[in-house]
């Protein structure tokens, strides 16, 4: 499988935050999810890919090219959707489209008109008069109308109502039917990714915790529920995150075999959701007493 994006040991420091030697790759023809809480480093990673910020160290290759030296060429093949509005508020949808369209050699006006109709976007309405959902749809319409090979979306569903979110996710699933296209979808709404993502990269405190195919990920982790009397230093060890209450415990483990060996049939085993994996790793990680910062091989 061809790598569309390769981040190799990329670091970027800000005051109070460091993206620390981040490495992962995006395979052609898949929807890749980038999850993590707000401030985990998702937007920084995307900005680095778009060459809006420069890495302190490491390299980024997109379509096999260095993203700094070949930025213009690379961005010709990227469709981008950002969480914040970056359009000119006083322009109408039509005028903003005219501005953006001129930059792309492969602009497809017919496709854009199709998305306008699909999203019910009013061409003559000013950007400032569009709702957040409408703005996001417009942004997606632009991103999809120049036959981009890579679509980068930073929190596209954040703050949107469930109907709009579902529409966007369905559209992404359609887009990826073209196996030459690749999507990177950053979000903290993990349920969105459960629906559409093929692989998931989890970033926390500026570090990649894992980058795995979604199915493999959900196989790898198990959610364990049982009584607190079963917990001791040894049985706590295989948990990535542990939540204890007066009536029992719930823990997430990335070593189901070992957990089964320790607890057998005395506990309940459940398949975790992406949200479980994220929450237990972040919030309950410090309760388990063990290999909290262990990272999975990429």
């Amino acid at each position: 499988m061809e790598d569309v994006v390769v981040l190799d040991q990329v670091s970027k420091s800000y005051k109070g935050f460091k993206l620390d030697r981040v490495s992962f790759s995006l395979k052609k023809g898949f929807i890749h999810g980038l999850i993590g809480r707000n401030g985990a480093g998702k937007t920084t990673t995307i900005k680095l890919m778009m060459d809006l910020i420069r890495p302190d160290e490491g390299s980024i290759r997109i379509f096999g090219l260095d993203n700094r030296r070949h930025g213009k060429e690379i961005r010709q093949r990227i469709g981008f959707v950002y969480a914040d509005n970056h359009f000119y508020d006083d322009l109408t949808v039509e005028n903003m489209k005219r501005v953006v369209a001129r930059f792309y050699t492969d602009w497809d006006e017919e496709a854009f008109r199709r998305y306008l109709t699909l999203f019910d976007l009013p061409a003559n309405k000013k950007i400032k008069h569009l709702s957040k959902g409408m703005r996001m749809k417009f942004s997606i319409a632009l991103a999809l109308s120049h036959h981009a090979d890579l679509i980068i979306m930073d929190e596209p569903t954040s703050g949107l109502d469930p109907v709009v979110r579902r529409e966007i996710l369905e559209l992404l699933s359609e887009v990826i039917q073209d196996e030459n296209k690749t999507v990177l979808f950053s979000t903290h709404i993990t349920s969105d990714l459960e629906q559409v993502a093929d692989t998931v990269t989890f970033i926390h405190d500026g570090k990649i915790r894992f980058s795995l195919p979604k199915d493999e990920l959900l196989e790898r982790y198990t959610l364990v529920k049982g009584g607190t009397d079963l917990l001791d230093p040894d049985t706590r060890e295989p948990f990535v995150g542990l939540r204890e209450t007066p009536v029992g415990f719930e823990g997430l483990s990335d070593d189901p075999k070992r957990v089964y060996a320790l607890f057998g049939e005395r506990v309940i085993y459940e398949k975790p959701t992406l949200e479980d994996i994220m929450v237990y790793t972040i919030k309950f990680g410090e309760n388990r007493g063990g290999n909290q910062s262990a990272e999975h091989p990429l």
Partner: protein
Amino acid sequence: MRSILYKDFVAERTVLLIYTAGVILFALQVVPIFDPLALASCLAIFFTFTTASHEEMNNGHILINSLPVNRKDVVTAKYAFHLAVGAGFIGLDVLLETVTGAWSPDLGWQIAIAVIGIVWFASVFFPLYFWLGHRFVQIAMIILFIMMVGVVPIVFNLAAKHDYWGILDAVQTLPNSLLLGLGAAVTAIVFVVSGFLSVRLYERKEF
């Protein structure tokens, strides 16, 4: 670069229209003013401030740098747009002054000074803008306004009262062609250095 210029034009055309109306009103003496050409140059300068402020407000740098462009082209387009607007305002004012018969005998000199003023402004403004960003625009606009309204008229009157401390006489003794050539050469050098510096600063900028 044409795409960037088109973007700037579409994004700023309403503001451009308002400033153009100002140039017309002053040139036709609808609003009586001592030197409409100088004011046209000032309007070109204020226009550039306005567009810079507008750009910051709309996260314009994030948009443009996410599109398939080089940062060098973005900087070049900024200079080109400012110069084009300046030339347009000067041209419009000269045309209207000519049509209305308000032609001044030293119009050639006035045009040269106006052009040099606009180029000098670009040479100073853009490197500072690309270096300091939005904060510079805000502070500089306030300072510029105070200078235009308060300081410049006082200094001008003071200089006129003291016969420009002999500087004007000394300058006038030099041949016109030498003065113009010298002014143009220095302006060109400053402009090229400014462009080079702006590209360097913008290439380092993070959004």
